[in-house]
């Protein structure tokens, strides 16, 4: 038979390897401690925020649509009464799911709450302040531009091509990061002005001339 039971409680290392391990403990504790002290000394300058990561680009796009709305200088006449909502619509099949609703929930621009809308097709288009056109719906861009011609509606696309074809702002991904493009010509046409803070971060593009414009 095997050795009898001897449950004797914890026993602590006395051998050489175990002592080596004890030293390792001390080293790690010192590493942690010195980093903490060093940190206090080095904390004088305000460093940039840590790089955040996500596995869902749709969350980033949704947050960026909300942010874009806050960078537009909306004339009060467009928004109407004090508590009238700022309407952000998604055209076609919505790739963002409920993420846009999440991003806009409980948010306000001054006194105006946000409202997320869906316009599934051209026949469903209604009044809105921002129209988000997913990349899959970009073919409809000319019709959308025509529909809202002369109205202060900001069309937000998902590619450089969208900004070249009628979107005032494009939110697109390159190298796993969000980028922004603006088309000042389009913005002038819809009489909307963006804050310089956004323009500073954005790539400026021009409207692509159609072949029959020559």
């Amino acid at each position, binding site marked *: *038979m*095997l050795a009898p039971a*001897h449950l004797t409680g914890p026993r602590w290392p006395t051998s050489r390897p175990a002592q080596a*391990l004890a030293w390792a403990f001390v*080293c*790690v504790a010192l590493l942690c401690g010195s*980093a903490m002290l060093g940190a206090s000394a080095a904390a004088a300058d305000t460093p940039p925020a840590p790089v955040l990561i996500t*596995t869902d680009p749709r969350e980033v796009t949704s947050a960026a649509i909300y942010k874009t709305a806050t960078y537009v200088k909306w004339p009060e006449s467009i928004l109407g009464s004090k508590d009238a909502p700022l309407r952000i619509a998604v055209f076609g099949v919505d790739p963002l799911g409920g993420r846009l609703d999440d991003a806009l929930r409980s948010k306000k621009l001054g006194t105006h709450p946000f409202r997320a809308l869906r316009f599934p097709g051209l026949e469903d288009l209604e009044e809105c302040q921002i129209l988000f056109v997913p990349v899959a719906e970009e073919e409809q861009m000319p019709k959308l531009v025509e529909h809202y011609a002369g109205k202060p509606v900001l069309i937000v696309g998902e590619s450089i091509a969208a900004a070249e074809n009628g979107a005032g702002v494009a939110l697109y991904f390159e190298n796993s990061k969000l980028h922004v493009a603006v088309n000042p010509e389009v913005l002038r046409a819809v009489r909307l002005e963006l804050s310089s803070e956004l323009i500073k971060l954005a790539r400026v593009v021009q409207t692509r001339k159609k072949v029959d414009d020559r």
Partner: protein
Amino acid sequence: MSISAPIGALFCAALLQAPLPAQDPPGDPPQRDLTELSLEELMNVEVVVTSAARHETSLWKTPAAIFVLSADEIRRSGATSIPEALRGVPGVSVARLDSNRWAVSIRGFNGQFANSLLVLVDGKSVYTPLFSGTWWDTLDVPLDDIERIEVIRGPGAALWGANAVNGIINIITKPAASTQGERASVTIGTYDRFLGYLRHGGELEDGHWRAWMSYSNHGPLDDAAGGDGSDEWDLFHAGFRVDRSLTEHDDWTLWGDAYNGFVDGKVDVAVPAPQYSFVGAAPTDVWGANLQSRWTHRFGERDEASILGYLDHQSRRLLVFGEERTSAGFDYQRRQPLSDRQDFTYGAALRGSYSATEDSFQIAWRDDRRFDSVFSAFAQDEIVLEPERWKLVAGAKLEHDDYAGWNLQPDLRVLYTPSERQTWWASVSRAVRTPSQAEQDLRAVFAIVPGAPDEVYEYIGDRNVEPETLDALQLGYRVRPSEHVSFDATVYLHHYSDLIFYEPGTPFVSGTDLIVPLTATNMPSANAYGFELATEWTPAEETRLSLAWTAQKTQVDPRGSVAPDVRDPEGKTPQNQVRLSLQRDFDEHFSTQCALSWTDRLTTDSVPAYWRADVSLDYRPDAQRTFSLGLQNLFHDDGMEFGPSTFNPSNRVDTALYLRASWSF
């Protein structure tokens, strides 16, 4: 569990005393709120995955069979533990043995002591060298703090080292900046009697911190005969994390936690006359604590170094077994661009582990003190052969283990992206599994047959066993035919050699007994092949359907092996698993997830095929509060998911109902 009542009361009191949310939310929403970032910060958010390349890379262009379970998917799944959350990952086999034990594996070799899977938390291994596996009961990372779980199927040894044989599960927790303000959550259910969680996050001059505590109390399941399964358990857990930006180029993180719990169970006891064998109670006391620190320095773009140091202590004591294990280690990693087209990553790691084990009437260890050290070095080069088209990843890890000696684990991968919507990848890899302490040192009686003399059947470990080797060939294809549909398919062929099986040896007389030994021996080889498919379809706004199908088969070539082995790779893993899941947001307040899965039969222990459904419904009246109702394991009430393991019987898994309230303020 005498402490459950006061702790439950503490949680309830904390929740009740929480201030009512104002109309305009002052605190942070439950998950990381990207809308709180400036546009500039948003433009710095990376859409990434880490495990496959050991530095962040885009998921779609990873030359490995990878799946990422996001925090949102974990929350929607209604899972109340990490193994239950892993049921939602294509290609992962999860079977519940009883209230506190799970068999979790990838590509076969499943069992309570599954030993071909490497589990990491924030890049630090949590496997125990005792049986080269994971204690799932004490892997109690709060689900609220998890940012994502990355699961890689197939070997990842070139980067992560020995035991990353059939797959890697990397649990990544949220940075402290994403868990600011207070959060409390309480779950009450028929099986999960009480799960409570409290967290506070705050700002530092140069960073953020959080501290949390949790208490969980789980009820028993029924045993195979319908009686009390004696497997209830509870765990008290507390932890913290501090993230600081020391300078513009240096980040430092310190995190740690400690737990203490009681885990009940049963054990098959083999003793001399007159009982010979009976099922005994095996109440287990567990406690542990760990501390980790990581320092990252950025030299420039794609150019950084990090060093991780850690200490870890685990204690587990029951009638037939006791272990105190202390581990410490360092892990250094450097990433450096060699040119515009080449990223070079290399590093070295040292880990020491000291284990004090206790013998009992049923088991004996060769030495009751044992120290193991592992040294490893790795290098990997990512070469862009043609931008946006061809990429080659070549890497290798050299590892030295006190008992297994030197091992080289090379890995070669090719990635081809013919278009933005398609990716092909292929890989050839070698991985080794080093023998566990049990396979080397343990003698355990598993049966006594009365007679004159009594025949005592024993598993006997052997220090001469060699590491097992896996040579793997994989081919993968991902395609997005439209913006709404995606497919991810992988086929693989694994060849295992020198598998460690327990083979019958020559019986010998010891005292008044005849010992019949089963000795750990490198004998059989095995071939495993399979197909893994994960598809996703978003037919309409706010609706997501996903379908996963995994087919696998393992064939053992005995090569003289005569005994069916305890690991039994052919009969303990389902040949087919299918899972269909639907996520739907009804409006801004209500959302649901329903998952229906089918698991093939297990030939060992004749576990029949079964259907299982899990449903959860969330109601979010505002950004601060979420109320959830969950139903787990519909259609398979009182069913077995896995047969008994070597020393423990399995229990029946009940249908369970729970209610959860979460509050951020």
